[in-house]
C-alpha cells in the first residue's frame, strides 16, 4: 500500500480493515485494495466513481475503468464538470475506459471467466499503465463492473470467480480495485450465501449510500438496530408467506386432483366415477365414512349406491329409512348442504341418533348432487367419528366434486334410458322384421302368383313363385309393362274389365290364359284394390291361381263327355237305324227274288240293294262304335279289299274315278273281318270324297315288316290324287270330331280307324300335298296276327 499517495476519498476505516485476505505485503510495502461498493441508486455510484477516478487522476495516477455505457457517459460528464481534462488523459493513456460487456466477452470461455485471458487482457493493460514511464510505481485505480454484469445475469459463481481472478491479479500487480453491485440484485433468499461470498472476496465492503451518509456513531448504531428489526419483520413475513405458499400448494394439489378426476371421468363408468369422487372427498376431509345415494324419482327414495367404510348392515338400515318430511331431505331438495357438526348435540338429528351411534359417527356433512336444471339426483355424505366442522375451502371443493358425481349419475341415468330405448327399439324392430319375414314368407311360399299393379295397370311386383310358374328369369323384363298385355288376346278384355272392377272398389275376377316363352298356362285371377292410409286406392293386388291342369282336365272331360254323348247318341241312332235297315234290306231282297220280275225292275232293285248295303256300311262306320264281334279269323286280304271296293263301285263309276288295285296275292291276316272292313271303308270313302272327277286312286297291299320291332306284317296303302291336305288339316286329321266335309262328315272316321289299327297292333301314317302332284297317301301297317282286344 502506498501510504504516500493515499487518496482522501477512501474512508480510512476501510483501509484499515484487516479481515481481508487480500492483504499481502507488496514490494515496497504496497498492497492491493479490493473494495466493493453496494449502491441503491445509480447516482450514488456515479458520485462515488467520479470521486474514485477524479482523485486518482488528480493525483497523477492512472485509472482503468470497465464500465457500462450509461455509467461511462454519466461519469465522463461528471468528470468534465469537475474540469478534469479527461480527453487529454484518455489520449495520454492515463485514463483507460473499457466497455464492461465487451471486455467480459473477451474473458469468457464457455461461460466461465478464463484466467489466462484475464491476465492477458486486464493484466496486460495493467502492465501497460504501471510501466515506469507512466508515472512510475504509482498505484493505479481500477474500477470494474463486469462482476455486476455476471451477477445480474444470474451467474453468481462466475461473478465470484471473476472476483477471485481480480484478487489473483492483485497479487501480481498492485492497484486499488473497486467493484460495485446494485443492491437490488440481491433481493432473493438464495442470494444470501453468494452475497457473503462476494463480500468475502473483498478487502473492504461499503454499504449503500444511505449508510454512508451517516456520520454519527450513535446514528449508525440506531440504523443498525432498525435494520435488525426490519430483518426480523422480514423473517416473520417470509414465514407467513411460506405458510401461505404451503396452503396454496395444498389447494392447487386438491384442484389438480379434481381436474385429473374430471378428465379421467370420460373413460370411467358412472359407478366408478362415483366411487372415485367419494374417495377423493373422503380424503379431502379426512373422513372416516362416506356414502353416495341416488334418488329414484319414481320411488322417491334415496338408495345407497357407493359407500366408503360402512358395514353392510348399516347400509341396509339406511336404505330402509323411509322418505319423509325431514330437514335432511328438505334441505337437500332445496339444494342446500346439511352439516351436522355433532350428532349428539344437534337437535335436528335426534331421530337418527341410533343410526349414528350404531354406525359410529358424530359428525356428518351432506352435499346435494344436482343436475343443471336443479333436480336432485342424489346425495353425497361424509361422516366423521368425531365432531367435525368443514372448512370453507373443503366445502367449496366438495361442491365441485359433487358436480362430477351429479354428472356421473345423470349420464348413468341417461345411459340406462338410452339402453332401454335401444332395447325397446330393437325389440320393435325385431317384431317388425319378424312380421315382415312372416309376410314375405307367405308371399314367397304360396304357389299363387301375387302381383301388385299401379293405378295404370302396370306391373310393380310379381312374387317369386309366380315368376317361376311363368318361367320368367329376369323379372325386370316384365316390370312396368301393362299387365293386360300379358294375357292371350282373347282374355285381354276380361283382364281389363277385372281391373276396372277393382278400380271401382270391388273384386275383379276372371279366368284367362297366358302365353310366355311358348308355354300357355291358365289362371284364375282375383284383383282387389289396396287402400293407402288416406283411404284412397293406391294400388291393385292381383292374386292368380294356376288352373292349367284343371283347365286341361276340364277340357278333356268335356271332350270325353262329348264323345260319350256322341257315343250314346250314335248308339241310339245305330240301334234305331239298324232294324229298319235290316227290314228294308230283306224286303228288297225278297222283291229281287220274286217270280216274273221285269229286267228293269230287277236292275232297279239291285241298285237299291247296293245302296242299302252302303247305308249299312255308312251307318257302321260313321256311327263308329260298331264292333266286330265275330271271332278273329284268317282273312284273305285280296278278297276283303275286293269286297269293300265293290261296295263303292257305283260311286267310283259316278265320279269316273280310276281305281288301281295292286294286291299282292295270298296275303292273309288273322283278325276280325268287320274291323278291317271298316278301316278300309273309311280310307276308301275319304279317297273317293277327295278325288276330283277322273281322279286316280291306288290301293296297294304288300308284305312288310314293322319298322319298329321288325315283326312281319302287311302294308296297305290307299292313295288318291285329290286336293291334298294343308299341314294344319293333316295335324288334326285323326282327331275326333274333326271334319272337312262339314255337311256330311262326322269327323270320327279316321279317329276310329286309327283306334282300330292301334288296338290291333298296327299303325297308320299319312302324307299329303297340296302342291302338284297333289293328293293324300294313307299308309297302314298290320301285323300278320292282329292283336285281339276286347
Amino acid at each position, binding site marked *: 500500500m502506498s501510504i504516500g499517495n493515499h487518496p482522501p476519498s477512501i474512508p480510512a476505516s476501510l483501509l484499515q480493515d484487516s479481515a481481508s485476505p487480500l492483504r499481502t505485503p507488496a514490494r515496497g510495502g504496497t498492497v492491493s485494495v479490493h473494495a466493493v461498493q453496494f449502491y441503491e441508486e445509480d447516482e450514488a455510484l456515479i458520485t462515488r466513481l467520479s470521486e474514485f477516478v477524479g482523485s486518482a487522476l488528480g493525483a497523477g495516477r492512472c485509472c482503468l475503468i470497465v464500465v457500462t455505457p450509461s455509467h461511462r457517459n454519466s461519469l465522463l460528464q461528471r468528470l468534465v464538470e469537475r474540469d478534469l481534462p479527461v480527453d487529454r488523459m484518455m489520449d495520454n493513456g492515463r485514463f483507460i475506459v473499457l466497455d464492461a460487456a465487451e471486455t467480459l466477452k473477451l474473458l469468457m470461455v464457455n461461460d466461465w471467466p478464463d484466467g489466462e485471458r484475464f491476465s492477458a487482457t486486464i493484466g496486460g493493460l495493467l502492465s501497460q499503465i504501471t510501466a515506469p514511464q507512466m508515472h512510475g510505481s504509482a498505484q493505479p485505480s481500477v474500477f470494474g463492473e463486469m462482476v455486476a454484469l455476471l451477477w445480474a445475469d444470474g451467474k453468481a459463481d462466475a461473478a465470484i470467480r471473476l472476483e477471485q481472478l481480480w484478487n489473483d491479479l492483485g497479487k501480481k500487480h498492485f492497484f486499488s480495485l473497486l467493484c460495485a453491485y446494485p443492491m437490488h440484485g440481491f433481493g432473493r433468499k438464495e442470494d444470501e450465501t453468494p452475497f457473503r461470498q462476494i463480500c468475502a472476496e473483498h478487502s473492504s465492503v461499503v454499504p449503500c449510500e444511505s449508510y454512508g451518509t451517516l456520520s454519527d456513531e450513535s446514528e449508525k448504531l440506531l440504523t443498525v438496530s432498525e435494520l435488525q428489526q426490519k430483518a426480523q419483520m422480514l423473517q416473520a413475513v417470509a414465514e407467513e408467506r411460506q405458510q401461505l405458499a404451503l396452503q396454496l400448494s395444498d389447494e392447487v394439489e386438491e384442484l389438480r386432483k379434481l381436474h385429473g378426476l374430471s378428465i379421467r371421468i370420460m373413460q370411467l363408468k358412472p359407478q366408478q366415477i362415483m366411487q372415485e369422487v367419494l374417495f377423493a372427498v373422503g380424503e379431502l376431509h379426512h373422513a372416516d365414512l362416506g356414502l353416495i345415494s341416488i334418488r329414484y324419482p319414481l320411488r322417491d327414495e334415496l338408495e345407497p349406491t357407493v359407500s366408503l367404510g360402512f358395514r353392510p348392515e348399516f347400509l341396509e338400515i339406511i336404505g330402509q329409512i323411509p322418505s319423509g318430511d325431514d330437514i335432511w331431505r328438505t334441505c337437500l331438495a332445496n339444494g342446500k348442504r346439511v352439516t351436522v357438526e355433532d350428532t349428539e348435540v344437534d337437535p335436528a338429528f335426534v331421530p337418527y341418533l341410533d343410526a349414528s351411534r350404531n354406525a359410529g359417527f358424530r359428525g356428518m356433512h351432506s352435499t346435494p348432487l344436482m343436475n343443471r336444471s336443479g333436480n336432485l339426483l342424489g346425495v353425497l355424505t361424509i361422516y366423521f367419528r368425531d365432531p367435525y366442522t368443514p372448512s370453507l375451502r373443503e366445502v367449496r371443493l366438495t361442491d365441485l366434486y359433487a358436480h362430477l358425481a351429479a354428472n356421473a349419475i345423470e349420464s348413468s341415468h341417461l345411459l340406462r334410458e338410452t339402453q332401454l330405448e335401444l332395447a325397446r327399439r330393437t325389440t320393435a324392430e325385431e317384431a317388425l322384421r319378424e312380421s315382415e319375414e312372416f309376410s314375405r314368407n307367405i308371399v314367397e311360399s304360396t304357389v299363387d302368383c301375387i302381383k301388385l299393379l299401379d293405378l295404370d295397370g302396370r306391373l310393380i311386383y310379381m312374387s317369386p313363385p309366380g315368376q317361376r310358374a311363368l318361367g320368367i328369369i329376369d323379372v325386370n323384363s316384365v316390370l312396368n309393362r301393362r299387365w293386360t298385355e300379358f294375357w292371350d288376346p282373347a282374355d285381354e278384355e276380361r283382364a281389363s274389365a277385372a281391373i276396372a272392377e277393382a278400380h271401382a272398389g270391388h273384386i275383379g275376377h276372371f279366368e284367362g290364359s297366358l302365353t310366355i316363352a311358348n308355354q300357355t298356362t291358365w289362371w284364375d285371377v282375383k284383383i282387389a284394390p289396396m287402400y293407402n292410409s288416406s283411404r284412397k286406392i293406391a294400388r291393385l293386388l292381383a292374386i292368380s291361381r294356376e288352373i292349367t291342369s284343371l283347365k286341361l282336365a276340364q277340357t278333356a272331360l268335356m271332350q270325353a263327355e262329348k264323345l260319350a254323348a256322341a257315343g250314346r247318341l250314335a248308339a241310339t241312332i245305330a240301334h234305331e237305324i239298324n232294324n229298319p235297315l235290316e227290314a228294308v234290306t230283306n224286303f228288297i231282297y225278297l222283291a229281287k227274288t220274286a217270280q216274273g220280275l221285269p229286267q228293269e225292275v230287277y236292275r232297279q232293285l239291285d241298285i237299291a240293294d247296293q245302296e242299302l248295303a252302303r247305308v249299312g256300311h255308312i251307318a257302321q262306320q260313321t256311327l263308329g262304335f260298331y264292333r266286330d*264281334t265275330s271271332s278273329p279269323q284268317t282273312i284273305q286280304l285280296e278278297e276283303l279289299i275286293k269286297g269293300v271296293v265293290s261296295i263303292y263301285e257305283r260311286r267310283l263309276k259316278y265320279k269316273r274315278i280310276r281305281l288301281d288295285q295292286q294286291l299282292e296275292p295270298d296275303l292273309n291276316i288273322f283278325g276280325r273281318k268287320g274291323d278291317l272292313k271298316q278301316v278300309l271303308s273309311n280310307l276308301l270313302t275319304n279317297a273317293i270324297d277327295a278325288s276330283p272327277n277322273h281322279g286316280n286312286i291306288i290301293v296297294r297291299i304288300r308284305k312288310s315288316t314293322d319298322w319298329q320291332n321288325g315283326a312281319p306284317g302287311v302294308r296297305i296303302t290307299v292313295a288318291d290324287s285329290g286336293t291334298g291336305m294343308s299341314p294344319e288339316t293333316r295335324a288334326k286329321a285323326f282327331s275326333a270330331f274333326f271334319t272337312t266335309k262339314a255337311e256330311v262328315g262326322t269327323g270320327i272316321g279316321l279317329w276310329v280307324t286309327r283306334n282300330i289299327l292301334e288296338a290291333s297292333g298296327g299303325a297308320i301314317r299319312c302324307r299329303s300335298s297340296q302342291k302338284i302332284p297333289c293328293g293324300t297317301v294313307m299308309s297302314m301297317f298290320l301285323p300278320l296276327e292282329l292283336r285281339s282286344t276286347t
Partner: protein
Amino acid sequence: MTDLNIQDFEQIIKRYITGASRRGSTTSSASRVGGKVSAGYERKVFVVDDELLIADSVAEILIRNGYAAKAFYDADEAIECARTECPDVLVSDVLMPEINGVQLAIAIRALCPSTRIILFSGQAATVDILKEAEKQGYSFELLPKPIHPTDLLRSLSS
C-alpha cells in the same frame, strides 16, 4: 257337333226315334207272306225278333231259299214251339224285351242241344252280353245288324 249341347240332342233324337219306331206305328200283314211251314227234309229255322218286319222278312227269305222257316215275335212263343219240335237253327235278335236273345238261346240250348244258334244285333253292347254267356259256358254265333240276306244265307249254309 261341338257347338250343340250333345245331351239335349241325344234326348231329342231318342224321343223322336223311339217314338217313331215300330211298336204301335206300323202293322203289316206282309209278314205273313208265304209263311207256311214245310215238312221233313228242309232245315227248320226259327226266326225270332220283336221287330215284326224283320222277323217276317227274314223268314220269307229263308223260305224262298229252301228253309222251313218260322217267324216268332217273342221268345216265349219260340221256346214253347221248341218244346214240341226242335229247330235245326235258331236265328234271333238279341235285344228284345222281357226275354232277350241270349236267354232265349240258353233256353233253346237246354231244350235242343243240337240246335245251331245264331244271334244278331245292331248294338255293340251285345258283345258284353255274349261275353257273360261265354263265362257261363255257352257260345253262340253273333252276326251284326244290318245283315245282308246273302250273308245270312251264306252263313247258314256253311
